[in-house]
């Protein structure tokens, strides 16, 4: 069906010019680009989801009370009170040392022992993760709680500042998906042009075959086999290069263990999709060739 069986004696009807035309190479390039776009799409979609999940139910409460002792007490009280609420999954007070270490990276002292930094009045931060989906309800309850325990503190939902980033990444993923579809269409167009060109080149042979009683099916099998083999070579080549590139990128990323890169790995479903694409492409090319050939032969008596 995909690569039809044609007796060896019949194969000679088409002179052997395998991989001589541009088709396999164009198909290889398109397959490479398709796989890279698909990999980018899968990776971006997964990052967007990961970010979305991470930020959806998380807020940070920032306590800026001037007196450092009151500030620490309020933070501890808020953490305890929040953790006791049914709508809170976890509440964590961010250690001052941790904050200093983070800020220290900008001050040029990784340990946070810079004297200027030591003297800075840092806010107390409490990270809170909600349970469930009722974000607005949770926020209202938390606001009331904060008003009681640490008046004047600010509540910062993470979705507010990471949300646009997640949305941007998601639209990039959609664009990558659209590119995959466009390149699939372009590949199909190449196959159609190849099939038509093959019919043109071998028109005399086809006419002859018709006149001695060959059926459209017989002639189609002959050409479909040739085109399917040629495109399969192209697809295999494009896939091999794409695999090499993706493995190289994966290897480089595995060195960067933190940040967004770590969340962008493709996952089992992603790899399965990437493996399925070349197989689908081979089937699509063969079926496109077949339909084109049958339709064109219909027009000859």
């Amino acid at each position, binding site marked *: 069906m995909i690569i039809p069986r044609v*007796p060896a*004696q*019949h194969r*000679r*009807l088409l*002179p052997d010019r395998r991989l001589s035309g541009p088709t396999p190479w164009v198909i290889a390039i398109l397959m490479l680009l398709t796989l890279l776009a698909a990999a980018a799409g899968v990776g971006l979609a997964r990052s967007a989801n990961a970010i979305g999940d991470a930020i959806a139910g998380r807020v940070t409460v920032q306590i800026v009370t001037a007196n450092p002792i009151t500030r620490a007490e309020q933070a501890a009280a808020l953490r305890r009170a929040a953790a006791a609420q049914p709508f809170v999954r976890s509440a964590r007070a961010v250690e001052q040392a941790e904050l200093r270490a983070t800020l220290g990276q900008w001050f040029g002292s990784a340990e946070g022992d810079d004297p200027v930094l030591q003297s800075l009045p840092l806010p107390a931060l409490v990270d809170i993760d909600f349970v469930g989906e009722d974000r607005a309800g949770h926020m209202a309850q938390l606001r009331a709680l904060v008003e009681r325990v640490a008046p004047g503190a600010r509540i910062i939902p993470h979705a507010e500042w990471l949300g646009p980033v997640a949305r941007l990444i998601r639209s990039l993923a959609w664009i990558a998906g659209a590119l995959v579809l466009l390149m699939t269409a372009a590949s199909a167009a190449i196959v159609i042009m190849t099939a038509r060109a093959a019919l043109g080149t071998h028109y*005399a*042979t086809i*006419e*002859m*075959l*018709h*006149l*001695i*009683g*060959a*059926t*459209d099916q*017989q002639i189609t099998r002959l050409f479909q086999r040739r085109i399917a083999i040629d495109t399969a070579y192209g697809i295999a080549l494009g896939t091999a290069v794409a695999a090499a590139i993706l493995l190289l990128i994966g290897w480089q990323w595995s060195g960067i263990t933190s940040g967004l890169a770590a969340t962008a790995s493709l996952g089992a479903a992603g790899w399965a999709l990437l493996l399925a694409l070349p197989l689908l492409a081979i089937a699509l090319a063969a079926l496109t060739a077949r339909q084109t050939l049958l339709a064109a032969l*219909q027009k000859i*008596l």
Partner: protein
Amino acid sequence: MVEFSGVGLRYGPDAEVLSDVSFNLQPGSFYFLTGASGAGKTSLLKMLYLAQRPSRGIVRLFGEDLVSMPRHRLPGFRRRIGVVFQDFRLIPHLSARDNIALPLRIAGVSEEDLSGPVGEMLSWIGLGDRAHAFPPTLSGGEQQRVAIARAVIARPQLLVADEPTGNVDPDMAMRLLGLFEALNRLGTTVVVATHDIHLISRIENAQMMRLEKGRLSDPTGALRYPPNRS
């Protein structure tokens, strides 16, 4: 066997190349088709070997109406017809042997079953030692013989030959005509288009049809009085 009735043919919007052509071909008969160059012989034969549908009129072949026959049934009919084309139409990248074997292979005959007949046919047309030569390396006459071998190899019920002896010497012409005659004796209906009056006189019982400017005349009465071949 073959029935044309009021058949007309035009290519595109031009005037008709053939007009009001009517005849009946009897099974097992031998017909010559003559006429000046451009009279429409090839055009008539094309309808006979199903390369062309008529613009009007009725064509019946093996008892079936060809004008309204759906496309997918044509291959079955074509396998019962052998054709020698005026311009040979050998497939240039197939050897002489493969060209001759083609109709059998298309019909699904196995390699074992076809190698005997194809070999015999090759030696019969005197090309036994050129079996693996490609058509472009063969002389015009040799190509013509391959074309004829291809037309008769599958023992067609109807053999249509368009100027089949145009490129061979008189001896070979007679040999090839002998082949047609032998086939005819086995029951094949033969239609040969030719200019060669000499050839026509060589076949006993052959009937003659004549085309003049796209119209059929019937000098020997072959069409009005079908030969009796009891």
